[in-house]
């Protein structure tokens, strides 16, 4: 089977005033299924831009992006929405749960847009919450949950459609270190169950959980290292 993600000469260029600004250029990258990848770099290095492109929230200016063998570089907004729904689960730094909406309903959200009937939706949402250890909190709204619990609800939402790819943007950025470890353990566990996880972080100890670490600088990948994940080392 070919790579899940295949980027070729990818570039994102913004028009700014008198000239062009390349937020990302000449990016060539392949990510296999089941990989656990950290994208690191200082702010302004282009890691957010890369994340948005990988997440099909944005289209590249140049280059090609094959996601599960499908060229998604120049799709329409409608097609991109379908791809996001089917292939990608998002985890955000600030959780991005709908307020005043229960955990279960938040988890169900992607299934609504996947046109899954209500009964099956409820069942799958419950299963996803079980996988992140929050089944007992299904009826709670985000304001009734701790930060770590909210992020776990968000992870349940990301995996409820069983997408091949989970993208996490600074998943521990708003959490204390103990909770961060908990979340990274959960992501590691999901990866060991066969999911592909790509996350962005600027903290070296969080990046240490990944098996592969990309370093971006000025819009280009300057290093691509395999490493022994932190949890494997510990055990």
């Amino acid at each position: 089977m070919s790579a899940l993600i295949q980027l070729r000469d990818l570039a994102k260029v913004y028009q700014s005033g008198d000239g062009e600004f390349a937020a990302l250029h000449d990016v060539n990258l392949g990510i296999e299924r089941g990989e656990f990848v950290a994208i690191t770099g200082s702010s302004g290095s282009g890691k957010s831009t890369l994340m948005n492109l990988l997440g099909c929230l944005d289209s590249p200016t140049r280059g090609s992006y094959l996601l599960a063998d499908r060229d998604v570089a120049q799709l329409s907004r409608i097609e991109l929405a379908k791809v996001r729904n089917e292939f990608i689960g998002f985890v955000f730094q600030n959780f991005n749960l709908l307020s005043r909406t229960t955990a279960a309903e938040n988890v169900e959200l992607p299934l609504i847009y996947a046109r899954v009937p209500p009964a099956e939706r409820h069942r799958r949402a419950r299963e996803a919450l079980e996988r992140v250890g929050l089944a007992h909190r299904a009826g709670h709204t985000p304001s009734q949950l701790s930060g770590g619990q909210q992020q776990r609800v968000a992870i349940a939402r990301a995996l409820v459609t069983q997408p091949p790819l989970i993208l996490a943007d600074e998943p521990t950025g708003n959490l204390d270190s103990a909770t961060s470890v908990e979340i990274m353990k959960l992501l590691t566990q999901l990866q060991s169950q066969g999911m592909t996880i790509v996350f962005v972080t600027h903290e070296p100890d969080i990046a240490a959980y990944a098996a592969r670490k990309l370093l971006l600088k000025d819009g280009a990948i300057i290093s691509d290292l395999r490493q022994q994940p932190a949890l494997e080392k510990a055990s």
Partner: protein
Amino acid sequence: MISPGETLRLAGRALRRNKLRSFLTTLGIIIGVGAVIFIQSIGEGAKSRVRAQIESAGTNIVMLFSGASQGPGGRGGAGSQPTITWEDLRAIQTELPSVAAVAPQINSSQPVISETNTWNTQITGTTPDYFVIRNWPVANGSLFTASDQASAAKTAVIGQTAAENLFGPGVDPLGQIVRIRDAPFTIVGVLERKGQNAMGVDQDDGLFIPLSTFQTRMQRGLGKFVPGRISISAVSPEAIPRVRQEVQQLLRERHRLGPDEEDDFSTSSMAEMTSMLTSTQDTMTLLLSAIALVSLVVGGIGVMNIMLVSVTERTREIGIRMAVGAQPGDIMMQFLVEALVLSAVGGALGVIFGVGLGQVIAPKFGWTMETKTQIVFISLAVSAGVGIIFGLYPARKASRLDPIDALRYE
């Protein structure tokens, strides 16, 4: 796009989340639709009351007036110059096949004196046929007769309002004596209650005496011409145009009017009066409804305003939904359906409000309410239309948001 049921459920939840705001937004629509329903119902009620009143006067009546009703200035109004003779009247009655009955009538307002009271009322001199034409039977006693007519007897038939005012409530007027211009009249019959006519005049406030008596007592002497107005009843409502035509032809012949000469009489039918009066009502109702519609549009602008606020407030929610796979069309539908629900619910409540308002207010002013189902459906459709039209722009705006910007929105 996701299913309509799902979209509706989403909209309902979003609106319930801001109950007060949703209600206040809806209020604009409620007042607009309520006003339309109220005005239409009152207008329709007034119209059918006018129609009923005119019909209570008899549906197949043609009124015949002496003198010219139209022509160059300087001439008097209808009936100002008597031109119709008793011979003409007899000819109308006997020669025209479409005519059922003919009754002249002369009115005069006079004080009537009973043993206990004096009451100013309308005295009408007429023939027994009048009550047949007007479809107005006696409730008690009998009408004056043709022989009363022939002998100019001092008998009278009384309306219920006049009777109550002359004799007091609960007193049987039959056999009582009243004095008109010093002449004693015996009450032989009490008419059934008829109510107001189209002009709002209480038809029950009156006294009816034989035409011959009226002429000798009130007018001194029988003339060649028939005084006052003449009621003619057609054999059927459909025969009214024919009656008018036949009467015109007959009188022109009898009055030896040349082809260039104008009629020296005029006719009018109740149908004409009905359509004239109801068309006035229609114009009023239309005008007021137009004003009410303006308030409905203002309500629509309120919906648009609140939907725009809602889109801005929920930018991040829109971003989240887009990130997990909502298509632009899904977002558009969500907000459009919200606007539609707001205004449709407002429309439904407005119908209830309008009808309720009518039920409370109408009796206080003696108005009649008549809510047509047609108007209810039109109002509901218009308010739903308002929701769609004014919801379209905010919904489009929401669907065109960039997911990255929307997710980053604080």
